[in-house]
């Protein structure tokens, strides 16, 4: 078990390094003098200072040394300075925007998981029945509809036409921020986000539960006289849901993408919107810094879910 953990952590670490190499390489492909990204605008620098900075970043030496210098700076939190936002440090911008994104994704994924579980169970239990067909059609629609289209329609119907929710942003401007105000602004984007992510979970739960219900041990449970509800919930579902832990990790990539679109439609000030604006402005230090942080986040979450899965499956844990 310990060996398994060590192996997985090492693999994740390796991927993180590879990712950083990729980001560094892409960064070097962009136009502009690399040193300018690291010049703090608040501190006046002389020619000698700039030359020393160049040396520290390894810009006067080979590419691998440059990578190591860049990586060392990154580990210490120095990802350079943005070309916009009044040249604020990249680290500060990311830290400021991470919260709203986590709030949006967290609440959205929670709703999506609950909804996906509920509808997945219903459609598995009533497989090939009219209810299942309706749910399957809705999920086909859900998979085919682009996230930004659903978001636009949601914004149009609920905020603009019906006026049930504010039309974007995280808080009402000009008014002191309260938790209730933020919550009111969170409802619509989180709900839309949940709907777009629910489809995957629902399909997965349906498939996994149907497969579990076809297994021999379910037949044994029925042969023992166990009540149907108990068969579904206690015997089949427990086995079906074991992999759902890893589903969170596997779907995280798609979820991050969805969050980026939701943030841009609803003007939600998170990492996604930050990245989109940075790309439009070709703000390379910010683009690469944000991408690196997002990539690292996904890697770490995947690692944690893998370890969690190994911990709760008795077949792996007791080896």
């Amino acid at each position, binding site marked *: 078990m310990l060996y398994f953990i060590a192996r997985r952590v090492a693999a994740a670490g390796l*991927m993180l390094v*590879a*990712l950083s190499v*990729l*980001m560094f390489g*892409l960064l070097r*492909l*962009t136009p502009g003098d690399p040193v300018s990204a690291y010049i703090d605008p608040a501190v006046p620098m002389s020619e000698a200072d700039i030359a020393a900075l160049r040396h520290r970043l390894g810009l006067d030496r080979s590419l691998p040394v440059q990578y190591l210098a860049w990586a060392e700076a990154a580990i210490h939190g120095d990802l350079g300075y943005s070309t916009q936002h009044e040249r604020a440090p990249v680290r500060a911008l990311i830290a400021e925007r991470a919260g709203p994104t986590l709030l949006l994704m967290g609440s959205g994924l929670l709703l999506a998981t609950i909804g996906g579980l509920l509808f997945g169970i219903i459609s598995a239990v009533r497989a090939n029945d009219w209810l299942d067909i309706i749910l399957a059609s809705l999920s*086909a*629609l859900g*998979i*085919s*509809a*682009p*996230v*930004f*289209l659903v978001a*636009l*329609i949601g*914004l*149009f119907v609920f905020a*603009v036409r019906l006026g049930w929710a504010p*039309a974007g942003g995280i808080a009402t401007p000009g008014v002191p921020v309260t938790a209730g105000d933020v919550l009111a602004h969170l409802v619509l984007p989180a709900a839309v986000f949940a709907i777009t992510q629910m489809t995957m979970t629902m399909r997965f739960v349906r498939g996994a539960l149907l497969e579990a219900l076809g297994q021999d041990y379910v037949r044994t449970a029925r042969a023992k006289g166990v009540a149907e509800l108990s068969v579904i919930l206690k015997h089949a579902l427990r086995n079906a849901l074991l992999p759902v832990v890893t589903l969170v990790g596997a779907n*995280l*990539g*798609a979820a*991050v*993408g969805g969050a*980026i*679109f939701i943030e*841009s*439609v609803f003007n939600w000030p998170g990492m996604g919107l930050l*990245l*989109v604006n*940075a*790309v*439009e402005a*070709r703000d*390379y230090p910010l*683009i*690469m810094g944000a*991408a690196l942080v*997002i*990539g690292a986040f*996904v*890697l770490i979450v995947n690692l944690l879910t893998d370890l969690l899965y190994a911990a709760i499956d008795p077949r792996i844990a007791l080896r």
Partner: protein
Amino acid sequence: MNHQATWRETWQAHPLAQAAGRFAANPLAMAGLLLLLAMLLPVTCYPLLPGAAPNAIDLTALNAPPDAAHWLGTDGVGRDVLARVLQGGRISLIVASSAVCISMLIGFMVGAVAALGGSVANAVAMRVTDLAMTLPPVVLLLVLASVAGQGIAPTILVISLLSWPVLARLVRARLLELREREFVIAARGMGGGAWHIMLRHALPNCIDVLIVFATLQLAQAILAEAGLSFLGMGIPPPAASWGNMLNAARSTVVLEHYPWQWLSPGIALLLTELAINFVGDGLSAALNPRSELG
């Protein structure tokens, strides 16, 4: 059993023909195919029609709602929305299909090298594939687009770099399976070299994987282009693309007051995606039948 099999019987026994039969018997798949043709025909034939001018400006009808002259209304500079939707469809399709072709090439090569090239090649290829799949797709698209720039060619390049890893894994899995089968060993015994094996033996046996991949990736690529254009990269105006037409809706004025301008490309996008997904699912089921009892 003395009669020579007729040409028709031989064809009907071919696995692809049997798969085609199963596809034709699948109502959802056929509906998707019909819908797809209904979308593709106007989109591809559009430039051949007289009077087709997606960039023509009609200053007398700015932001006009749908009417007899402009079936889907006009946009902020007086261009006919229907014309732009059709034109946008063409561009989206061209970009998406080119990207899929390129990614199929890359994916097949990487997968084949990994499966047939020995353990070092396999390890390297798989690590590269894993790395390409680490970043969330949208993030990768944005980062690559920021380096490559806007326009048709850069967008094709960026999207093709997104989808090849999935195919590489599928091809590798299929070829590993086949490597142990007799006909490959026989081909090598016959003295067939690596290229020969790849083209004459490996490729034909990956056709079903490639067909299903191509179809489903086409849907993904269309979405990717639309997403990129929606976020401001991808295909820049004045060229029409479904994504950059939806971009207009990021302005509250357009969103609220001129819904036909963004609902039209949105629904076109949705219908195309639905059609391709149905066809893709149908192909997948037709090529990999599972036996069922009733």
